[in-house]
């Protein structure tokens, strides 16, 4: 088996349909500014709460996103066990942590399957965006930790916090229970990444800088064009308290908040351009 597995070849059964971030961003449709609250009036509040008219479907879709994200996190941690030679490329203890993460992520996949059943979703019912694994493809284990453990798992903290609150508000004991447990694991994984990043780059400031820059890029990517930010327009909020527990400094959280808002605004601007182009195309087609 080769080292460094390409994202395009991630193995899935026939129920799954993989799409890339490019595909996702190429969709000119957007829910931004057009969501409705319980009274059906137009609003800019798109946070995923039970009060949203499409709350159940929104939660099911997000849960499926968590499910495939857990699969990719499992695959990413597993590849770190394989891709790097022990000690010469990655410390033995780091690889042990990644193996532990494999077990945790495998459990999260199991939990997600059970939760999806509970919520009435089917495996593969939604397209799978493979962007999470892409962050796990770096050839530098430190960059991989920054991308996977700090950015990806950091996003997981935000998502699980949103879903835990959703379960709590909806009175869904099953959802709240599961998210609570998964959240505990994710905080551990982020802390693992923070600790290793600090330890490995202790005497290598350039490498640390590069890793943090990479994390910032991934954080922006994982903001999914505004899906996660402090703004109420984003379905997923930024879980500041749990991020703090996981070892993020206040400055780091502020940076993530800023790049998330940038991503939201860039997405709005990109959608506006795509819509303009689509409208022009429609007008010219009608004229012909």
């Amino acid at each position, binding site marked *: 088996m080769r080292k460094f597995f390409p994202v395009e070849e991630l193995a899935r059964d026939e129920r799954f*349909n993989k*799409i890339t971030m490019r*595909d*996702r961003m190429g*969709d*000119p*449709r*957007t*829910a931004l500014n*057009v*969501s*409705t609250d*319980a009274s*059906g009036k137009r609003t800019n509040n798109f946070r995923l709460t*039970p*009060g949203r*008219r*499409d*709350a*159940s*479907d929104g*939660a*099911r*879709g997000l849960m499926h996103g968590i499910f495939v994200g857990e699969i990719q996190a499992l695959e990413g941690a597993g590849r770190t066990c394989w891709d790097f030679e022990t000690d010469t490329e990655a410390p033995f203890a780091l690889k042990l942590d990644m193996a532990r993460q494999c077990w945790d992520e495998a459990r999260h996949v199991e939990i997600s399957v059970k939760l999806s*059943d*509970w*919520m*009435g*979703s*089917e495996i*593969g*019912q*939604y*397209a799978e965006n493979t962007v999470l694994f892409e962050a796990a493809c770096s050839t530098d284990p430190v960059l991989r930790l920054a991308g996977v453990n700090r950015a990806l798992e950091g996003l997981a903290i935000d998502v699980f916090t949103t879903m835990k609150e959703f379960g709590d508000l*909806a*009175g*869904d*004991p*099953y959802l709240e229970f599961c998210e609570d447990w998964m959240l505990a694991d994710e905080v551990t994984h982020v802390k693992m990444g923070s600790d290793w990043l600090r330890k490995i780059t202790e005497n290598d400031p350039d490498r640390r800088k590069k890793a943090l820059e990479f994390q910032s890029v991934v954080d922006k990517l994982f903001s999914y064009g505004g899906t996660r930010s402090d703004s109420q327009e984003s379905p997923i909020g930024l879980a500041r308290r749990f991020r703090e527990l996981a070892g993020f400094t206040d400055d780091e959280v502020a940076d993530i908040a800023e790049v998330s808002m940038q991503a939201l605004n860039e997405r709005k601007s990109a959608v506006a351009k795509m*819509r303009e182009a*689509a*409208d022009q*195309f*429609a007008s010219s*087609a009608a004229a012909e």
Partner: protein
Amino acid sequence: MPVTVTPQTFNYVFYDAELIRSIAAGLLGALGMSDHEVFIDVDETTPLARINCTVDDAIHIHADSGAFEDTRKPRQQSETATATSLGRVLLRARDRLVGGFGEAPADDDLTLAQVAAWETYCIGRLQRFGVPVNQQRWRYNFRNRHGFSDASDAAFEQIWQSEGLTWGELNAISDTSVASSAH
């Protein structure tokens, strides 16, 4: 009576207006509603899956593109999703047209619990018409609006199995379920 779909050509999604029309026509026949003129307006600029309808001389359906989408393949149309979405609003329209639902609020004025109860009633019947349905999806939706309790599940089963309910009966089941879950 004709079914008119707008737009005829889609720019944001890869949908087929004729397919939407034929699915709607098939459902109208199966539901005994072929004598009604139907206008289906699809908002292709949003991926949301909202769908609602108003009834006057004709039936007017307004759907977000997500209501007809194949969630496995973004921007592609799903025949099952199209049938499920259209079926549930057409059944709601039929309920309003055939009587017994005269006092039901307009779609926009329904509470979340009332929407969930009525959808359960529609989807249960739709399944018996042969449209593929994941019952657990609708049970979960019902629970979110009526509580995660045995009483809520019993109410769901009662509504799902029912035919010929009036608005008063449907609303009473929903209200009782919400009240018992609150205790």
